[in-house]
């Protein structure tokens, strides 16, 4: 899974395409860890081209959310999430842990 990171003044935007499943979740985790390990904790995950997320994917995002919110130093927010993916996130009870934006600019502008 190709993951791109764009670093802005106040936050980093992470973008990837395709499926986040047990096979690809480690690449996403690696990209997110590289950001938090650099001491940056304001992250936007642009899910526009993400077509599928299994529970393994959610745990990667939950793990990052914990790192970001610890000491109130930041937050991971989601943007452009496909409707079915959002529904399954809510179904599994994890929807409440993420702020979701409709628009990438609004997500970046929130930091």
């Amino acid at each position, binding site marked *: 899974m190709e993951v791109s990171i764009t670093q802005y003044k106040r936050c980093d935007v992470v973008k990837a395409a395709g*499926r986040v*499943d*047990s*096979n690809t979740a480690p690449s996403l985790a690696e990209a997110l860890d590289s950001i938090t390990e650099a001491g940056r904790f304001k992250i936007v995950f642009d899910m526009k081209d993400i077509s*599928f997320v*299994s*529970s*393994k994917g*959610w*745990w990667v995002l*939950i*793990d990052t*959310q*914990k790192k970001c*919110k*610890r000491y109130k130093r930041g937050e991971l927010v989601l943007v452009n999430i496909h*409707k*079915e*993916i959002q*529904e*399954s996130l809510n*179904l*599994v*009870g*994890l929807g409440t*842990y993420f702020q979701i934006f409709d628009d990438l600019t609004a997500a970046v502008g929130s930091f």
Partner: protein
Amino acid sequence: MQRTRVFPGNYKSLAEISSFIEQSIKEAGLDTRDVYAVKLAVDEACCNIIDHAYGGEHKGEMEISVQVETDCLKIELRDQGKPFNPADVPPPQFNATLEELEEHGAGYYLMKKLMDSVHYEYSPQTGNRMILKKRIKN
């Protein structure tokens, strides 16, 4: 009609399995939301087989059969890994704070939420069988 395929028990199979499911259930005419639900449930079931029944990748195979009936979609997954007791699967962690959340589980719970029925059985002859059903609304 019933379609059956055998996949190696590794994570690389998951994308192929999703495509196989999508192709196989096309004729059932489910909406995008239900198609997604079925693909996700099957993905979670296969991950559990790899992670728990086999205890890791490359230990065994997964046989998947898809049967589309007039009012119901039936997906059967078989493996030769170790059996488990669904009653022992802990309930999901509701109302946990972010820090309290333990980063695993949810897969089995999701399967039950996404499908209309989830049935598991084991026999030494046939191994593990997981049967997932989804009603087809017309």
